[in-house]
């Protein structure tokens, strides 16, 4: 008895789970770095987010959808959990982390139909929900000095810049961290975003394993760099340097891990570049002119909303009439 099926009779050995695991491996350096700097509180925050995300996905599948396949085996809920915790300050109360996870998985992911069906990045929806609900807790960062926390609180570089602009001070008058400190993560901020180095290592791993393509990270960071560079060249006293912009806040985390989320980014290479440029430009605009010091999350969510429109752009077709 022979099996008969249409071609192709060959399938690549990638699968959804392997791709998701690649992302998890790529998140490891930033994860370890965060635990080293923030200590046990970072670990607790991450574990809470991961466990609650996986639990909510399981629970919704089992009791709400009554699915037999719980879809947690694909590891995507773990990524949502890790990314959500990466976007939170280490001092955030545990119950808020759990609420964030519920919003991320319940509202942003499962209510659209689960993996691949969601329009907005779940982790970012969770973060933004927490940010607008608990603005004070979400913007209190512990001060980082010599790669450890001492219990006092301090502002992030972007917070300092926003303050100085609001109060009419010149950037030269305030004390900004050096780029070197930002690259190696000797600054305050959310759990996963402080070390550019750790995030870039993860990004290189993702590119090498062909989990993501270069289009989105490069276009996000490139457009941020160029726009911030022009603004800095025109008014250096009120606009921060482009290097500071791409090394601070959620720029790296957003460009490498959040904007590249498969479900919420465009399908074609050209679409990905347009998407990335949109994020970069919006981020700089929000950072410079908006009410919040950081605009990465909002920029990504706004661009997520127009992905269906971007997907109308056709790829270059072989033999198309010119």
């Amino acid at each position, binding site marked *: 008895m022979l099996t*008969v*099926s249409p*071609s192709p009779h*060959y399938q690549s050995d990638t*699968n959804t789970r392997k*791709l998701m695991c690649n992302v998890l491996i790529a998140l490891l350096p930033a994860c370890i770095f965060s635990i080293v700097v923030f200590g046990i509180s970072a670990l607790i925050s991450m574990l809470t987010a991961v466990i609650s995300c996986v639990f909510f996905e399981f629970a919704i599948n089992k009791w709400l959808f009554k699915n037999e396949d719980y879809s947690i085996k694909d590891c995507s809920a773990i990524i949502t959990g890790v990314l959500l915790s990466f976007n939170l300050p280490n001092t955030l109360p545990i119950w808020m982390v759990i609420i964030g996870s519920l919003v991320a998985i319940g509202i942003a992911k499962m209510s659209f139909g689960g993996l*691949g069906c969601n329009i907005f990045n779940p982790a970012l929806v969770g973060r933004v929900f927490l940010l607008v609900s608990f603005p004070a807790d979400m913007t209190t960062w512990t001060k980082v000095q010599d790669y450890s926390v001492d219990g006092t609180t301090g502002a992030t570089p972007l917070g300092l810049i926003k303050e100085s602009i609001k109060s009419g001070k010149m950037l030269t008058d305030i004390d900004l961290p050096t780029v070197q400190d930002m690259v190696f993560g000797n600054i305050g901020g959310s759990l996963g975003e402080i070390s550019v180095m750790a995030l870039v290592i993860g990004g290189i791993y993702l590119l090498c394993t062909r989990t993501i393509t270069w289009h989105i990270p490069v276009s996000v960071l490139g457009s941020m760099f160029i726009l911030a560079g022009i603004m800095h060249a025109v008014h250096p006293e009120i606009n921060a340097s482009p290097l500071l912009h791409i090394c601070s806040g959620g720029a790296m985390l957003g460009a490498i891990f959040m904007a590249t989320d498969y*479900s919420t980014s465009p399908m074609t290479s050209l679409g*990905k570049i347009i998407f990335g440029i949109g994020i970069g430009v919006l981020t700089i605009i929000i950072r410079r002119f908006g009410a919040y010091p950081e605009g990465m999350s909002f920029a990504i969510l706004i661009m997520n909303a127009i992905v269906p429109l971007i997907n109308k752009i056709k790829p270059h077709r072989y033999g198309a009439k010119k």
Partner: protein
Amino acid sequence: MKTFHIGGVHPKENKLSKGKKIELAPLPEVVTIPMAQHIGKPANPVVAVGDTVKVGTKIGESSGFVSANIFSSVSGTVEKIDNFPNVAGFKQQMIVIKSDGTDTWEDTIDRTDTVVNNMDFTADEIKAKIIEAGIVGMGGATFPLGVKLSPPPGVVIDSLLINGAECEPYLTADHALMLEKSEEICIGVELLKKVLNVPTAKIGIEVNKPDAIQKMTEVAAKFNGIKVVPLKVKYPQGSEKHLIQALTGREVPSGQLPGSIGCVVSNVATTFAVYEAVEKNKPLFERVVTVTGTALPNPSNLLVRMGTSTANVLAAVGGMPENTAKIISGGPMMGKAIQNLEVPIMKGSSGVLCMTEAEAHRKKESNCIRCGRCVDGCPMGLEPYLLYALSKKNMIAELNEHNIRDCFECGSCSFSCPAHKPLLDYIRLGKANVMQMIKKEEAAKAQQQEKK
């Protein structure tokens, strides 16, 4: 390094029979020769039950412009002319010939191994011989070569391209042929050059066959205007349209044939058949077939007579492995899964691939994660995820707008999908529906015009 510009995937090569010499398959006792071994109209049988035939006797006469002659591959008597299931499972007219075991060839055929390089033929003579010998594209598409060599008036052919890419995993038949019959292939190229009246020809070979590139380059140096071009290893490099882009930079416009941009592509096996037909008077009744599979103890390249059953071919390499669950005629990307072992070898059969139980079954399908791998992989620049969804919803007009007819079913989308979606299955279905819609529309238009 040269290659095509859009899409492409990298399947695991698994060329198990790489480096194996071409061996003669044992003579079959019975052959079942289909009258349709090519695209176009089936040939008409010109023998009757009880007739005695020799090897190379014409048994099927070409029935139109896009058709081809069929020849007996054994000497013996015609036993039956009846309908049997073909490689796709449809019943089709075939001629069953019982071998007398003597292997007597037609007297006109030169059976010696000497390489003949006789260029004293005119272009028309060569073309007539090619058409008479029933040569069709042996890479799998089986388009009659005579048609390719007869461009419609106004079309000027300026590029002759020889396809030695062999991009399908597992297959090594063309590779073996290029190593062992390089001179013959080059003479075949010279003959085709003469027919088309072009000064140069390019042979494209993927760089995973360095020995073939070296051998062909050495031999081609003895001829004028034959250039061997190494190509990047990327599936589907051996697709006609993509080979043209890699070698000339031109694109075949959507819905048109390569001739429209002045290109003729011929596979190396086809080119070898041209040599044999013209210089040796040998019609097309045997070909090199890769018999392979991970469970096969001895994957081989066999010279097989047309009409030999798959069972006999497998017997020649030690029989079908016990855990075989699927047998593919051709390569794993575009080949057809056959229903039973009686299916005969034909002009377009480049391989017989046995897949084990573990390899034969598709992986479980899951949610589309919208990763875009199918879009990145499509060599035609289509959006397989979209075509899949439209086809599932039976939105036929939209499928046509999204150029579903450009798809040539290479399988790159289904291959690369991490969610294991049956993308190509639905695209194929959509294509058939679109074709039907267009046919209906045309019929309706014709009717309206009649009324007027």
